[in-house]
């Protein structure tokens, strides 16, 4: 389980990284935290010709939030998200999601953009980001693109990223007033990839009725799945037991997970209902 050969360069700046990427051609890859790429190398499932190390680029490892929203730098580590004092209320889902990624040492190395670019269908952050209507800033020597999460992921381990592009940050628009969010998952052991993950964000109007709802499911398809019917169930109604149950049922009915050796489709669908229900109840109880 030793990595295959590749050429390596450490980028000194973002511009440098982009130039190196251009130079190195189609089969080059950037290396950020290495927590997904290095295992792939060890299994010899990835064979990049070149690795461009962006792990210590200055400027990409910060978070800032103001009334236009939240910006998370591509190199922010999972453990920083997990312990960030900023990520509460509307952004809570990011903090909870990050805390459920792998184990402590993995979260110390793994990066926000790395997780998005890797696009594992069982990854937490793509699900959480989708629930917050995030967009990703993507840069190449040709310039910037801003790609909404809903368009960024196109399949298991597949995104619209071009080989010479780097994810620079994630942008989270100013939330609707009163937005609260939460994350839940079921994994067989502490730190395992989840069987089902659920991100929920809701905002209520003055009458306590849902006026904004995002329910996004992970691990039940090729990419983060918006449970549109479940969201519709909630819109306009209070977070009553009946509304929550209806949304949980709709979320389960609206997804089509596959049978796997470790979790059957039926089981995953049951978990969707359980986790959507639990998360909505938690949001209701945490902030009555």
């Amino acid at each position, binding site marked *: *389980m*030793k*990595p*295959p*050969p590749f050429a390596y360069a450490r980028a000194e700046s973002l511009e440098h990284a982009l130039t190196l990427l251009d130079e190195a051609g189609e089969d080059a890859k950037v290396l950020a935290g290495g927590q997904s790429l290095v295992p792939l190398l060890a*299994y*010899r499932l990835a064979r990049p010709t070149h690795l461009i190390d962006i792990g210590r680029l200055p400027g990409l490892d910060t978070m800032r939030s103001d009334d236009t929203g939240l910006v998370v730098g591509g190199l922010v580590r999972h453990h920083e998200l997990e312990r960030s004092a900023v990520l509460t209320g509307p952004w809570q889902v990011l903090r909870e999601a990050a805390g459920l990624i792998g184990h402590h040492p993995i979260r110390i190395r793994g990066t926000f953009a790395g997780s998005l670019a890797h696009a594992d269908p069982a990854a937490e952050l793509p699900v959480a980001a989708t629930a917050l209507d995030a967009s990703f800033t993507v840069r190449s020597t040709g310039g910037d693109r801003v790609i909404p999460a809903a368009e960024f992921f196109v399949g298991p381990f597949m995104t619209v990223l071009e080989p010479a592009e780097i994810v620079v940050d994630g942008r989270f628009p100013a939330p609707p007033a009163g937005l609260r969010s939460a994350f839940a998952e*079921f994994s*067989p*052991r*502490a*730190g*395992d*990839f989840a*069987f089902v993950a659920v991100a929920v964000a809701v905002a209520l109007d003055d009458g306590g009725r849902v006026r904004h709802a995002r329910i996004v499911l992970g691990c039940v398809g090729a990419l983060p799945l918006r449970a549109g019917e479940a969201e519709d169930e909630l819109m306009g109604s209070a977070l009553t037991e009946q509304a929550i149950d209806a949304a949980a049922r709709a979320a389960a009915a609206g997804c089509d997970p596959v049978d796997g*050796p*470790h*979790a*059957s489709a*039926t*089981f995953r669908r*049951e*978990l969707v209902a*359980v986790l959507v229900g639990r998360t909505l109840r938690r949001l209701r109880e945490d902030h009555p």
Partner: protein
Amino acid sequence: MTRVRGLVGADVERLADLPLLTGAARYVADVHRDGEVHARIVRSQVAHARIVGIDTADAEAVPGVLAVITADDLPDVRIPIRLPLADTPRARRVLQPPLARGVVRYVGEPIAVVVATDAYVAEDAAELVDVDLDDLDVVAEVATAADPGMPVLHPDLGDNIVSSYPLHHGDVDAAFARADVVVRERLRMHRHTAVPMETRGAIAEVDPATGRLTLWGGAKVKHAVRAALGEMLSMEPADIRIVEVNVGGGFGVRGEAYPEDYLVAFLALRLRRPVKWIEDRTEHFVATNHAREQEHELEIAATADGRLLAFRDRAWCDQGAYARSQGTLPELLPALHLPGPYRWEAFALETTGVLTNRTPVGTYRGPGMTEAAFVRERLLDVLAGRLGLDPAELRRRNLIRDDDLPFTWSLGAGSAPVPPISYQSGAFCSSFETLLERAGYDELRREAATRSGDTISVGVGVATYVEVGAMGPFEDARIAPAADGSFVVHVGVASLGQGVETVLAQIAGDELGVPMDRLRVDHHDTDAVPMGFGAFASRSTPVAGNAVLLAARDLRTKAAKLLGAEPDDVEFRDGHVHGPGGASCPVQDVGEGRGRFDKPHPTFSFGAALSVVEVERDTGRVRVVRHVVVHDVGRAVNPALVRGQLAGAASQGIGAALLEELSYDERAQPMATTLGDYRLPSAGELPDIEVIVLEHPAPGNPLGAKGAGESGMVGTPAAVANAVADALGATGPQVTTLPLTADRVRALLREAT
């Protein structure tokens, strides 16, 4: 008569922890020999195929590659069976060649070996070995493996059956005819295995001057590995030296003779350079022995008042694609353990070892007994449910009574020749009561009932068993005094992390009356210890320990003779032996103490487990919230170490019951080849294990020890399964297979509604 110096029976600190704590310990991957080169095994990616051709040219062309070998480069040899007890003519026909010859029979079977100057380069080159395979149909499950019409793995065997062990006791048909109740189930224990944290490895070197071969890395049964290598390499065993280094866990799978041990030795002889092979983790999951997979059709007959009458069992035990060094043990051991600690009037059982296109099966901690305990104890709980009887009460009414011991099953005509199933000592009923009492069984039952609700169901489960241990045939020990007043104990067991050095030093020190820091235990090298049978079947303390005790007595007697004193009156101190009245002489004048302990028949000992689980009903997640194990160890030389062993084994049993599984798909492709897919429990999935150590000394051995290394395992999967079944309710669908993953538990709950 044991001299009371308090070493035996005390929680003496483990020797040899220091290098483990500071990183100074040397495991096989840490051994470096000058000029060493690295071997990488090319393994089959398919489960069953004819080898049409192997093209090694591209691999050979990689700079740094020294050799690429296939079966054509090897003599036609097989890895022999090490235990006469498990060696049969049919098993001998399905032994594994070190590299596949003509046919591959499981995913992971070695096909070729690449040797290069660097491990990374060896792996690069191994990928370039081009193997042309013609797929054959596969046998992917144990239950149908022996059916007519299935592909036959080894054509000259005629079918896929390795061996069968029928055992009969009493008149089964008559007992069933009298029964008020008969319960039957098809029960399945799943494939899982030891997965020590250190993978296997070996490094072989030939002394250019003498031609002698040294192999580092073998542990457990060094002398057997040496004999096997000698036979396969056509060398005198005396020309082979096996050196044990630190070992990162064995649990039964490490240290048998494996294909790779032969291959590195062969390559070192051929290349005249040290050859090193370190298994990687994905290899480990297909290359190192698997264990446990069996299906049983079991039925139990009982009276309405809960008296067990008889059982019938028909079992299929997976051998995988070949019989390895442990021969027929995968089917022999469950046969010996099915009757367990109960008073059956009669039983009839037959265990059959079958071949499938999957990794070969060997022994893993509590082999055969864990499987037997699971099927028997599970069905007993089904019976208890049917009778409306508390499961503990059912056992209480049927355990062999304390004053019925010793107890031997008489086996009737048609039974296979097996070692006597004989329970020499112990106190089954009172030991079981101790467990119930200390765990607070009645209170636990009441709590379970009150705490169970819509979201959580609480269940309590128990299981009892007898365990074979202390297998012979014998062990030799030698104690050599040194000028500085210290003593070296030479003995042929193996240290696999169990703390055996500490225990053996305690025994010697206790008898000689010298403190721990004056004692050294040497078991690492086959040169220093010419004979030994190794560490298996919980034998190190009861067999080697007694040999050490006898050697220490011998030394004491010799010293006494020299001084003309009574053995009890001499004292070992300051490099001298002192007798009464001031007589003394240098301890080296006494010579060596020698001891040999023969153990013609294994010892059976009793144990039980109790588990309390919580089942989260909507997700199916099972949490073991309490787990208590009790075992009669005969004599605990070091109670703290024994408790650690039992707790560790129980942790593994909980992993087996809930998480770990080596599943295969219908093409016999393995589904768990990483530590992400093969789920070992972490501290997050385990409760703190409670251990009760009981001591009913074994007769016929001066120490009284029985063996304990495996026992925390044996009853654990059964107890956890029974607890989950209890949580789910006796009336619903039955728990008949493991592991009880959340997915499986949900399926059971769905079925129930």
